[in-house]
């Protein structure tokens, strides 16, 4: 590629910069004079223009005119005019203005100081850093393709004047935030350096310049043209395809037709820029293809409607992606799985996420509830079990003769007459079988003989005799004898229970027992008490069993 082609093939754009120093216009304080002018390659031969003409700048400076700088106020008609006659030159309105101002204050154009133009008095005062910065920005904005933002970036990077930019290498410019190669080169070109141009670009630039210039000469509303040209350049630098517009401008000038297309383009670019900004903030994961397709068509201003609708579609896809990402894990939540599946299916089948909004919100809410409750359950289930300590239970004293080792089981209870040892009642927990009967008689016999003949029998006390694996407990009263045959170990409560039963029985039926005629049915209370004793002792046995367990 023909980089670094001829230098200054085009007529020096610089020429026009070298305008004659003009008095600062009071009306536009914000305009700063550029520092050093470009070396006025050719002093503009233009005749100074009468002030009245000032407002309508005849030239069309193709520069990206900073909107903030009102052109009308520019004093330098003088210089602008000159170019018109020259024809070929493209005029850099703002630059000229700036220069003009600057000249007025300080011909040397040192960037540092400037006269305060306010009030038109042109009195000098010290410049604050902010003002210096602002002035530098304004100066840089006089370069085509440099708007306020870029000018700020340049100033931040240390470039205070167009001259410094002219001196900078392309590489240095590329260091500036937001400066790509294309823009950097465009700026260099606009500033009058042609060395860096490719041939074809040079053509482009020059033809563009010419085009603008021609119109500038003819148009009365050159101020508006300024803006139009600036925008056209800005747009092409930004990569928008505005050839049609440029062609139309060339062919028709600022015809109604052109202006119409221009405004449409302006609006389209505004919309596209908006999309660009939004897109820059988005997570495009998973929709890269769509995004690439969209980005690749974004320079085509004519397709703005399609761009907008594709962008809307893209946003919808992103929403679907986000919702899926959010909902898919919720399939794990049992209580929500069905509903989540339903929503995912609907999304899959192309239902607009907006329509599912309420349902999704409800699912979110219920997920939160589920989260809370399951966490609480978990926390509680993990909690340490409470230590259990039981109250002490009454136990038999270990060394007592009555200490039980095995629970006491009652086999038979007998009530005998104290007088003649006749059997009054017998209750048992055993089945009455032939074999058992024999056993019962054996027990009865043993008890009787102990009571009647054994000297060890102690009346009034609980007598304990052993036979085989059984024990007989015998307690006597005034009229009767109570005997209980048990297995296992004698319960500590046995004596108490037996005494009590005997006492209760004799209290009611004692005399009847004394004069008993042998009919058991005549002593019903005695029998009832015996049964009660049997149950009570059975319960003793149960308790003993439990304690043992």
């Amino acid at each position, binding site marked *: 590629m023909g980089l670094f082609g001829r230098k200054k093939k085009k007529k020096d754009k610089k020429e026009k910069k070298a305008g004659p120093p003009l008095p600062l216009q009071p009306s536009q304080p914000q305009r700063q004079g550029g520092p050093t002018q470009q070396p006025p390659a050719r002093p503009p031969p233009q005749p100074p223009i009468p002030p009245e003409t000032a407002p309508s700048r005849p030239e069309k400076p193709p520069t990206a005119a900073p909107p903030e700088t009102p052109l009308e106020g520019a004093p330098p008609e003088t210089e602008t005019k000159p170019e018109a006659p020259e024809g070929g030159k493209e005029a850099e309105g703002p630059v000229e203005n700036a220069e003009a101002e600057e000249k007025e204050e300080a011909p040397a154009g040192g960037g540092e100081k400037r006269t305060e133009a306010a009030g038109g008095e042109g009195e000098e005062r010290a410049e604050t850093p902010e003002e210096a910065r602002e002035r530098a920005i304004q100066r840089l904005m006089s370069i085509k393709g440099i708007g306020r933002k870029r000018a700020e970036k340049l100033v931040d990077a240390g470039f205070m004047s167009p001259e410094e930019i002219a001196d900078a290498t392309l590489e240095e410019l590329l260091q500036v935030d937001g400066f790509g190669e294309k823009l950097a080169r465009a700026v260099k070109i606009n500033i009058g350096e042609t060395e860096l141009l490719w041939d074809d670009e040079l053509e482009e630039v020059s033809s563009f310049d010419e085009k603008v210039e021609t119109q500038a000469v003819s148009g009365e509303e050159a101020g508006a043209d300024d803006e139009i040209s600036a925008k056209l350049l800005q747009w092409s630098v930004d990569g928008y395809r505005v050839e049609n517009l440029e062609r139309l401008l060339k062919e028709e000038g600022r015809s109604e037709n052109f202006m119409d297309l221009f405004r449409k383009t302006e609006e389209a670019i505004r919309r596209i820029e908006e999309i660009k900004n939004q897109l820059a903030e988005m997570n495009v994961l998973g929709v890269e293809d769509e995004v690439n397709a969209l980005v690749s068509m974004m320079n085509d201003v004519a397709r703005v409607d399609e761009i907008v609708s594709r962008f809307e579609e893209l946003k919808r896809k992103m929403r679907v992606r986000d919702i899926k990402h959010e909902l898919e894990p919720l399939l794990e939540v049992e209580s929500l799985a069905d509903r989540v599946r339903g929503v995912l299916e609907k999304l899959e089948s192309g239902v607009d996420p907006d329509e599912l909004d309420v349902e999704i919100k409800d699912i979110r809410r219920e997920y939160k*509830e589920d989260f809370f409750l399951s966490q609480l359950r978990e*926390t509680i289930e993990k*909690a340490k*079990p*409470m230590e259990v300590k039981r109250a002490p239970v009454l136990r038999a004293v270990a060394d007592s003769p009555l200490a039980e080792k095995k629970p006491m089981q009652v086999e038979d209870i007998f009530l005998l007459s104290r007088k003649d040892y006749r059997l009054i009642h017998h209750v048992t927990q055993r089945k009455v079988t032939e074999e058992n009967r024999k056993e019962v008689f054996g027990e009865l016999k043993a008890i009787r003989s102990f009571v009647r003949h054994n000297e060890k029998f102690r009346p009034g006390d609980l007598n304990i005799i052993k036979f085989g694996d059984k024990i007989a407990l015998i307690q006597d009263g005034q009229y009767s004898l109570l005997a209980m045959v048990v297995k296992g170990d004698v319960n500590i409560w046995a004596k108490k229970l037996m005494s009590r039963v005997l006492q209760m029985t004799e209290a009611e039926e004692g005399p009847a027992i004394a004069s008993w005629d042998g009919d058991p049915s005549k002593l019903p209370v005695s029998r009832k008490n015996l049964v009660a004793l049997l149950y009570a002792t059975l319960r003793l046995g149960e308790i003993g069993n439990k304690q043992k367990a």
Partner: protein
Amino acid sequence: MELKDERIKTYIDGLDPVLEGGIPKNFIVLVCGHAGTMKSSVTYSILYNNAKRENKKGIYLTLEQSKQSIIEHMAKLGMPPTGIENLAVMDLARVRKDIMEKQTEKKNIDWLNSIIGVLKNYKERFGCDILVLDSLAALYALTTFKNPRAELFYFFEKLRDLGVTALLISEIPTDRNVYGLYGIEDFLSDGIIHLKVVQTDAGANLYLGVVKMRKTKHTRDFMPLIAESGRFEVVRD
């Protein structure tokens, strides 16, 4: 460092001006009253309107009624939950029942700390601006206090550390005139809103009074409280 005086609006018409804009953020407020004084509905409406209008996140912890019955009741009052993402109703009574059934042996469950712990996790994950606890008495029933005053004190402190605005429903026992069962809730809290029913010839009217609200200059008058399709309103003379 003084925090900005941020307030949680009650969205009870007429009450927010009385409270200088609402309940100060992160306050613990007792909402007291005998049975049937709409304590649940009033607190739910605060959560509901904050969720709906300000996207503020709320939790309604119920230990009394089931979630279903609350939701149905509130829908009837004009506060359906549909599409309201930021009002979660947690049915602790249900959890309690499940756990009691599942439990083969008695466990010493530290409900207070468990609830606070889970609230903390929940808040970190989903955020929570306002918490309603329905009710204190039911919470006490879950817990065997060895030293109620000390334990309650710590509970309130932990609640405060959570950094949520808490509305604690406290039913006033019919036989006593205290704001909480242990008699210390009122001074542990930053504010007390008292709801009461006053019998008249024509029927019963509901009144709301702000008994206490720190950092706020408020009237202590009891104001008639009117409920109308999801909105509450206090009437001032």
